């Protein structure tokens, strides 16, 4: 295609402008990709905590599922719970074993104490609420129930990680907002950089453009190489930015993977990263199209 040849020739003639445009866009897309991945990751972490049982009430030893039914129904009738689940002693043991793995110390098999059995673990009622705001109401119902056991301090034995979830929600929101602000600022500076570079090129080639128009070239003929050039800068920047962010994640994997085990699988799968690349390239396409059009727009209106 001749238009691509023209575009490449224009880039070759001003290599330093091309390098600076690509460098700015690489930084934009590097930070953009990192923030997109962090925002996505924090969303997954939040979801993970939100979908886990949020309120756990430990029950007295004599409580059976039948005895528990009225309390269960009372909780469900509030319409503020997602799930109310009875966990028996044997299920509790299974969960415990799964969480400690094969550690013989925690399983009690090599200590003087006898091995951990179902008897020493309490049955419980695990409740997921539809919104963390409903915690107090649900906890209040549980506190008033005689079926819930009391702890050594004489208080009802109820666990609910309200603070953790609220804190996490606040962090996620802050992260998203901060990331978004930064990305908008970087996008703005990228648009400005491309627009200035393309405008400089147009200014430099004003004679050529006016001659082309005098020879009967329409606006699209004149503008296309410049818009393509702008898109090419964005694409290259997006590709490098994506590549560097992928490398950064691979580099950070040994540190992050054990801390996020069970929540996020690290490093991200190649398919997921490919999807991120497609997203980055689409953004680059829009960015290049917008910046290029902005730069050539005012010249197109001339005869």
């Amino acid at each position, binding site marked *: 295609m001749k238009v691509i040849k023209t575009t490449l020739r224009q880039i070759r003639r001003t290599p330093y402008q091309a390098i600076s445009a690509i460098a700015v866009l690489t930084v934009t897309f590097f930070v953009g990709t990192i923030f997109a991945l962090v925002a996505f990751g924090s969303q997954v972490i939040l979801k993970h905590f939100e979908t886990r049982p949020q309120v756990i009430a430990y029950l007295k030893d004599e409580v059976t599922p039948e005895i528990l039914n009225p309390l269960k129904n009372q909780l469900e009738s509030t319409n503020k719970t997602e799930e109310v689940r009875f966990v028996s002693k044997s299920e509790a043991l299974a969960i415990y074993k799964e969480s400690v793995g094969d550690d013989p110390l925690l399983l009690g098999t090599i200590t003087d104490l006898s091995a951990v059995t179902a008897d020493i673990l309490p049955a419980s009622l695990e409740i997921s609420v539809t919104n963390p705001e409903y915690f107090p109401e649900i906890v209040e119902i549980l506190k008033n129930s005689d079926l819930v056991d009391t702890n050594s301090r004489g208080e009802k034995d109820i666990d609910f990680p309200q603070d953790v979830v609220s804190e996490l929600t606040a962090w996620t929101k802050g992260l998203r907002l901060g990331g978004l602000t930064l990305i908008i600022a970087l996008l703005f500076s990228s648009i400005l950089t491309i627009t200035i570079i393309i405008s400089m090129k147009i200014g430099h080639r004003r004679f050529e453009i006016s001659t082309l128009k*005098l*020879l009967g070239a*329409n606006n699209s003929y004149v503008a296309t190489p410049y818009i393509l050039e702008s898109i090419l800068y964005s694409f290259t920047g997006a590709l490098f930015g994506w590549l560097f962010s992928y490398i950064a994640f691979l580099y950070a994997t040994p540190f992050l993977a054990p801390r996020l085990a069970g929540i996020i699988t690290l490093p991200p799968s190649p398919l997921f990263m490919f999807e991120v690349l497609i997203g980055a390239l689409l953004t680059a396409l829009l960015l290049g199209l917008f910046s290029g059009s902005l730069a050539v727009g005012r010249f197109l209106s001339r005869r």
Partner: protein
Amino acid sequence: MITLDQVTKTFLTGDTVLEDVNLDIKPGEFVVVTGPSGSGKTTLLRLIYKDLDPTKGTITINGQDITKLSKKAIPQLRRHIGYAFQDFKIIPDRTVWENISLTLDILRIGDKAINDRVKHLLDLVGLPTKAHLFPGQLSGGELQRVSIARAIAHEPDILLADEPTGNLDQEATYKIAELLKQINSFGTTVILATHDPGVIKKINARCITLENGKIKNGSSNNQPSVSPKKDDKQKHTDKSTENKKDSQEKSKLKQDK
């Protein structure tokens, strides 16, 4: 084919360059527009090319009033007209080949057809060996021939040639004149703006003389109404005055744009 009806052009500076000009040019005709510098020759060509709009009057090409053309339709009009510019307007960082092929590329013509056509044009203008040279490597006469080749590359119905022999020596001037006659013989309507009596005589075509923005005569032969016969010294003085007037006219045109 081309009709100018009561055309007046006044620039923003208040200078009236053309006043109530009436002109009819038939298809395939060769018309020489002559007159002293600043008489409105270039303005007349630019009006036909819709590089300028008249202040008053209408310009009709093939039955279409081009004064009413929208901006978007201008490229389409220009694709039927070739323009050999007085200052050549050859793009300096493109080769002769690339410059000539520009008009064809604008029309999105295929590479093979462009190659054949450019080769033919280079032969026609006598530059077959200069295809891959850059404008800086050519003489004025060669540049003018490139400009003409580019203007006729797309086989336009009309060729406007603005002082194509402006700064050329006699031999180059005659070559250009011959070339224009040859192009006209293919059926292209040629409008040549010149104040070179030698060219007017050589071309032997209908001659229109402009003076102070008005048509002084519209003869059907090669006799301009003002045919200055001056000695060389006087010609030299006139040339300097003309150059000054040219720059004044160009600056007026720029202001108007």
